[in-house]
């Protein structure tokens, strides 16, 4: 058995294959969303940038395979400090885009540290939960993971990045659950947190008290999510136009480059947050169902890999990554369909956006690493 054959012996080929398919679909729909068919479009710039991100991401995937994933457990403290440092630096020095300080620039490269923070948090949380695995049924065991998750959560909220904050919270919740956290305490924490948010918002709406975390526009998004017709040309516009785009694709779609909602720019943010609406409009239910099923299939493979992981740390990392993708898919697709509020988080592998593409591919690289090293006899 050659090294290569041995290396690939445990590889779940479904994972790279599905990811590859999703990226192809992504390129097709971005091409349409940036109107590559129009004479004067600058679509190529978008596609080139996206291609560069994919190539860099794949490079990361390959480099990662050279190291055992457990190295992340050893360096957990470093990773955590790096994450806090990056997020704080962004908060202090970052560029403000669309109401949030989310970007930092290193030379010509702009990236959003909050995206990277998702993976970093997963790696650190897995370490902490693994180290406290005996106490996870008690408050004592849940204390450190909660503190660890809370600090980056607050830093991201301060960047006005509600979407990413929710992703972090979801990751924390799922990992705690998978790591054996006490359901009663979790329900208590989650329930009281939810209650506090409801109280704060009600007080704001009724008594005009200040909003501690939310911006006014974020609250409006939540309100129009509940009833978009309140303000069809303002905040509700995005939801209405997205539903029209999706629905009007009917069973088979209007055809590539033929979506009128997309091509005539009724769809907002169509190459990033609302890329799924473009898919739904141009490829119909067949297209949207295919994408949804591909994601289900991919997550199913992840859970399989988690089950087969050689240790509890690997298992927890895979669960964390699964939770991240699950939340992204649910929130993004749900938002385009009007069943989730608009928070502006991208659809993995498909939405235009370099940082998250690289984050996603890094996550896949870590999963493949865990997948390949399931057998203790390897190497």
């Amino acid at each position, binding site marked *: 058995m050659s090294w290569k054959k041995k290396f690939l012996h445990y590889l779940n080929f479904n994972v790279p294959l599905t990811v590859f398919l999703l990226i192809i679909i992504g390129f097709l729909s971005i091409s349409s969303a940036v109107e590559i068919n129009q004479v004067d479009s600058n679509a190529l710039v978008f596609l080139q940038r996206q291609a560069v991100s994919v190539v860099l991401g794949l490079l990361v995937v390959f480099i990662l395979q050279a190291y055992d994933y457990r190295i992340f457990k050893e360096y957990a403290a470093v990773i955590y400090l790096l994450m806090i440092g990056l997020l704080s630096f962004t908060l202090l020095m970052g560029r403000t885009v669309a109401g949030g300080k989310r970007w930092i620039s290193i030379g010509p490269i702009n990236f959003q540290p909050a995206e990277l923070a998702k993976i970093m948090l997963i790696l650190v949380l897995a370490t902490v939960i693994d180290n406290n695995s005996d106490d996870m049924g008690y408050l004592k065991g849940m204390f450190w993971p909660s503190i660890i998750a809370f600090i980056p959560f607050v830093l991201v909220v301060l960047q006005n990045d509600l979407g990413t904050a929710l992703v972090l919270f979801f990751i924390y919740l*799922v990992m705690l*659950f*998978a790591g*054996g956290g006490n359901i009663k305490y979790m329900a208590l924490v989650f329930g009281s947190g939810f209650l506090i948010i409801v109280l704060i918002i009600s007080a704001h709406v009724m008594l005009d008290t200040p909003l501690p975390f939310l911006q006014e526009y974020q609250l409006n998004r939540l309100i129009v999510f509940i009833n978009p017709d309140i303000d069809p*040309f*303002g905040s509700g*516009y*995005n939801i209405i*136009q997205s*539903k*029209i*785009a*999706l*629905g*009007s*694709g*009917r*069973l088979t779609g209007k055809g590539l480059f033929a979506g*009128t*909602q997309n*091509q*005539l*720019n*009724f769809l*907002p943010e169509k190459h990033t947050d609302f890329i799924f609406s473009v898919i*739904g*409009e141009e490829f*119909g*239910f067949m297209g*949207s*169902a295919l994408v*949804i*099923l591909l*994601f*289900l299939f991919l*997550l*199913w493979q992840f*859970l399989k890999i*988690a*089950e087969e992981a050689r240790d509890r740390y690997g298992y927890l990392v895979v*669960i964390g990554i*699964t939770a991240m993708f*699950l939340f992204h*898919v*649910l929130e993004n*697709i*749900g938002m385009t*369909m009007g*069943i989730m509020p608009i928070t502006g988080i991208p659809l993995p592998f498909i939405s235009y956006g370099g940082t998250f593409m690289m984050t996603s591919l890094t996550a896949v690289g870590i999963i493949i690493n865990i997948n390949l090293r399931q057998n203790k006899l390897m190497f």
Partner: protein
Amino acid sequence: MDRLKILRIIILVIFIILISRAAYLQIINGDYFFRLSEGNRISVRPINAPRGKIIDSQGKVIVSNRLTYNLYLMRNEIPPGESSEEILAELSEISGIDYQRLINNYQNTDVKSVIEPILLARHLSKEEMVVIVENNDLLPGIIVQEASLRDYIYPENMVHTTGYIGEINRNELISFNELGYNYRAGDFVGKSGLERQYEFYLAGQEGAEQIEVDNRGQKKQTLGIRKPIAGNDLTLNIDFELQLSLEEILKENFDRLRLEAEDDEERIKPTAAAAIVMDVNSGAILASSSIPNYDLNLFAKGISSSDYQKLSNDPLRPMLDRTVMSDYPTGSIFKLITGAAAMEELGVRADSSFYDSSGRFYIPNWSRPFRNWLDRGEGQLDFVKAMARSNNIVFYELGHELYKEYRGDKLAEYARKFGLDQKTGIDLPSERSGLVPDDQWKRETFNEPWYPGDAVNLSIGQSNLLTTPMQIAQLFSVFANEGILYKPQLADKITSPEGEVVLDIEPYIKADLRSEINDSTFAALNQGLYDVVNKSYGTASHHFLNFPIEVAGKTGTAQTSRALTNHAWFGAFAPYEDPQISVVVLLENGGSSSFSVPIARDIIANYFGVDEEDE
């Protein structure tokens, strides 16, 4: 690993929800959303239709249209996050159009549907149009569409007859649409004259262009066009060459008479003048004018309220069309009616003899005499000569005889036979019917009986008699053609823009008096009219010395309640042997018919191409 199973179930549930939702939107409600997406990208732009032209009998265009631009707001093309107010403010900044005016038009619109355009401003200047079109990237939802503006080639001629246009008001909007027409707020409609009378023919039908727009409202392509239908053209009986000459003559004399009156204490300034030329064999109006008038261009873009105030408050009332909207006593012209009634009812003949001893006429038991215009008796006159001399005494006597025989009704009955006391039916709005007083009228109005004095006064066209110049033109036409009462008509035909005749207006005979009135009556009275002009003793003869056309006519100086302020009339037809036209001239407060006769003479001379030297 129990918890992994739970996670699997949660994931499955989430994905089942997503797929069900996709199926719900795309399969179950797909058609609904498809229609919405079509509605999203389709916008409708108005295409204005030009109003019909007004053309004279010789094919000369009198009123036409020229290209202008209107400004609209399309609410469905405003991108999210931008408000109409913001865009209007930007528009005001860029174009210099007053913001308040834009916002008023936007807020006061009747348009409810967001896909319908809201008219913001009409008839942009070229500079405004260019700067708005150049900046259309900054002005989503703002569109400029071609429109037409009434182009008056002769803005100060035939003003009242043409009439003015203005923005449709609420009452018009409701009543026009109840009639089945399709008007919208902001439309311009005829408000007076022919523009109003033939509004439903002249008005075009707005078309629309269905276009595909993107989210900035920018046109991508045309999907369909509903062509506008241009208004129908109105061809008149008016001969505009004649009209221009008539107006020139009328205006020249009017201005001169006003000027002369300034230096003459015995005279007062005429306050208005009217003249009509009518074809006696069809009722066609060949020329018609009323002065003072106004400039039609004031109304083309919608009149400003200050201009309108100025016109309304002008003491000479330039907006009033004196040919049909004002009525006056006729003075001696009414002797035609008294004469006809006397010949038909009292057996008076052309050679019946009368005697005017003193220039005064006394009614039994009435101390005050009724006077002739001459302060001495004219001795013996036959009926025709009494007409030519316009001798009041003879007609007082006839009026009194008619009263004794028939009380207060017979004379009024004849007046009505000849079309007085009723609208002529000319194709103009707001025509007055005038008034022929009689016994019943007097009882109803003053609760008094019809006295012999009333009858005597009426017999020479005084009392409470009121007639419009159009009624008098009609009266002279009936005498000219000896018995056929034609309806006066301005319009000849209406043609579609393709040249197809939509409405052909034939001469309309309202009554044929030949069955009721003897030829000999017309012959005798016409002889009288002929002598007025052609016998040396005729009251108008000295103005027609050596006139190459034989004219028959009658002077009228109608007294009003104020001293010196007599209305001056002259009615005529020509040529005497084979009449073609009747002519009426009225000088409101003109003093004496000696001022109106020369005006009529000049109009007739112009019509027949008589040179000055021939006279």
